[in-house]
């Protein structure tokens, strides 16, 4: 079922067994999981089925610290969320990502990868991927001429990726609208979460839209699934009954904001051609490809973060501007257009490059960010058009982040040398070992993580191992905000798996 909340009588009361706030990858995955249940599921989406700039504007906010994308254009605010224009890159986190690493402050999840494995397998289906197989050996049998670089397996491994072309807005609109169990309300922006007198139970959520309508949603359980920054903003802004915000009794909500550092970091020059199909991919065609990753043993030895390096032809990459430069328009459509226009131009210029550079690659880092309490989302003083304080983001990186990126290429440089496949050249920003800063050209992946981190200890995390907000009996957070650490891969596969695990948990409660 579908209702446009702008068309409801003002002050309508909507009821359900569970209420999912947000219809992006997390929210839709959970909703689909209840499709054949006997329960009434309310699915709230702030926008409609298409881009609406007035709705998108609700995401606007200020940024400080490390240069960042405009918050307004960093995520998409309509049914399907940011899957509306994502690249579809999927890979699970590694075993190590879930463990406590003594060299990574605040690392460790209260669950292991084994806990998530069944849900990863299920998430593969939701994301319309292939089998839950991410080992090189499997894909070597499936795909021709992968031919990996001959690096020492104890040091470097090939981390496999699969690629989704599923845009949730298109794929899942009809099943949800036609569902008898799911009632989707578009133009229903959550603006306030309300507690009972004990302040331990959410009773209702107020929603609003630009038609001046306000409604109340009542449910037994509430799942916030509107993206890391918006989930955080809602907890902090719902401060009428709890001045510090809901779930924020230990001043943790909004802290530990993490992104993936995606930055051109080095070059790999080969003396002769090395034919391989392993390290490149084409949207809509490639089933699986790999990035170069550092083994757990080597990470432990060097006390570094977990990351990978992808390869792009240097003759093209040298002409591409950093995304942090091309994606600076507040309108996500224009930013996207700028970015693709630059890529097309780079490809055109790259074709003119000849000589040794034709055998060279740019190495692009994709690495987790060390959890940092000072990297955080807070509320601004300005309010949006629905009266909710805007989010401010202070993105702050640490020396461990810089050290880890540099170390990764020192290790790859050593491996390239001893395997005699080529030589690696670090980019300028990595050459001074005493420089812990990142240049403005450092990209994020538009991946927002960590601000309602998971921990069994309420003093160390906002949600517990089941993604329930500590101290609140019926409020859950779905999505990457729950990640205590961010791993190297893009977050969608993991956040979908975690959301499906949460969904299973809530089924046991209703």
């Amino acid at each position, binding site marked *: 079922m579908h209702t446009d909340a702008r068309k409801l009588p003002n002050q309508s009361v909507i009821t359900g067994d569970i209420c999912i706030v947000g219809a992006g990858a997390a929210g839709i995955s959970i909703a689909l999981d209840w499709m054949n249940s006997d329960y009434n599921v309310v699915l709230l989406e702030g926008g409609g089925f298409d881009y609406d700039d007035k709705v998108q504007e609700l995401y606007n906010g200020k940024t400080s610290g490390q240069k960042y994308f405009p918050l307004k254009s960093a995520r998409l605010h309509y049914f399907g969320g940011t899957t509306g224009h994502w690249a579809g890159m999927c890979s699970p986190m590694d075993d190590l990502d879930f463990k406590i690493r003594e060299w990574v402050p605040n690392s460790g999840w209260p669950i292991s990868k084994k806990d998530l494995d069944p849900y990863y397998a299920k998430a593969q289906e939701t994301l319309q991927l292939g089998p839950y197989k991410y080992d090189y050996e499997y894909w070597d049998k499936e795909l021709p001429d992968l031919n990996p670089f001959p690096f020492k397996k104890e040091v470097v491994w090939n981390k496999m990726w699969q690629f989704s072309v599923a845009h949730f807005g298109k794929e899942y609109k009809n099943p949800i609208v036609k569902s008898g169990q799911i009632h989707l309300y578009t133009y229903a922006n959550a603006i306030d979460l309300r507690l009972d007198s004990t302040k331990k139970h959410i009773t209702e959520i107020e929603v609003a839209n630009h038609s001046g309508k306000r409604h109340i949603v009542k449910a037994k359980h509430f799942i916030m699934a509107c993206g890391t920054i918006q989930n955080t903003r809602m907890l902090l802004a719902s401060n009428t009954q709890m001045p510090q915000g809901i779930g924020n009794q230990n001043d943790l909500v909004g802290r530990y904001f993490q992104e993936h550092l995606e930055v051109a970091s*080095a070059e790999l*020059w*080969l*003396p*002769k051609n090395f034919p391989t199909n392993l390290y490149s991919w084409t949207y809509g065609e490639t089933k699986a490809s790999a990035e170069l990753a550092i083994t757990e043993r080597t990470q432990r030895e060097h006390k570094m973060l977990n990351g990978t390096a992808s390869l792009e032809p240097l003759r093209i990459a040298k002409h591409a501007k950093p995304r942090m430069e091309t994606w600076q328009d507040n309108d996500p459509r224009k930013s996207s257009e700028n970015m693709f226009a630059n890529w097309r131009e780079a490809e055109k210029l790259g074709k003119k490059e000849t000589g*040794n550079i034709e*055998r*060279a690659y740019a190495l692009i880092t994709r690495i987790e960010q060390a959890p940092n309490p000072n990297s955080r989302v807070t509320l601004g003083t300005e309010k949006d058009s629905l009266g909710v304080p805007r989010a401010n983001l202070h993105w702050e990186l640490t020396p461990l982040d810089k050290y880890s990126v540099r170390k990764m*290429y*020192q290790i790859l*440089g*050593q*491996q*390239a*040398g*001893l395997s*005699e496949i*080529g*030589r*690696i*050249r*670090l*980019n*300028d920003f*990595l*050459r001074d070992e005493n420089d812990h800063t990142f240049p403005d050209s450092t990209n994020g992946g538009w991946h927002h993580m960590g601000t309602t981190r998971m921990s069994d200890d309420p003093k160390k995390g906002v949600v517990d191992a089941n993604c329930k907000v500590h101290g609140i009996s019926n409020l859950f957070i779905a999505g990457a905000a729950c990640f205590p650490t961010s791993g190297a891969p893009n977050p969608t596969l993991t956040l979908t798996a975690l959301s499906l695990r949460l969904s299973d948990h809530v089924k046991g409660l209703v």
Partner: protein
Amino acid sequence: MVYSALGITSVALPIWYYNKDSSGYHELVIEPEFLSHIMDGQSIDEIGSHYLELNPGESSETELISLLPEADATTGDGIIQKIRQEIVANYTSGDTICIDGWVLSRTEARQCALYSLNHKT
């Protein structure tokens, strides 16, 4: 047999170069053979200059030659093979140095330094 992408072997080396060491050295000792396939002579020269700045104790050809693997092979193939083994050994043991961003083996960095000294003469 082409040993070099740089054409170093065709460079007329000064007579003093051969007189530096009584045992004599093949001109390919100063040839960073692998690097010559991915960069030009100017880049090798610059790497060599920076290596000399970072390692003032190795600023003479005599010193550098003494630190390179003994290259008494009479054929170019033998010399290249020997130096190549030493370079791989450097990478394996972690005896690398970062110059102008390049992660280089100590041996090939010294070869660049020798090239640079020779190039300036």
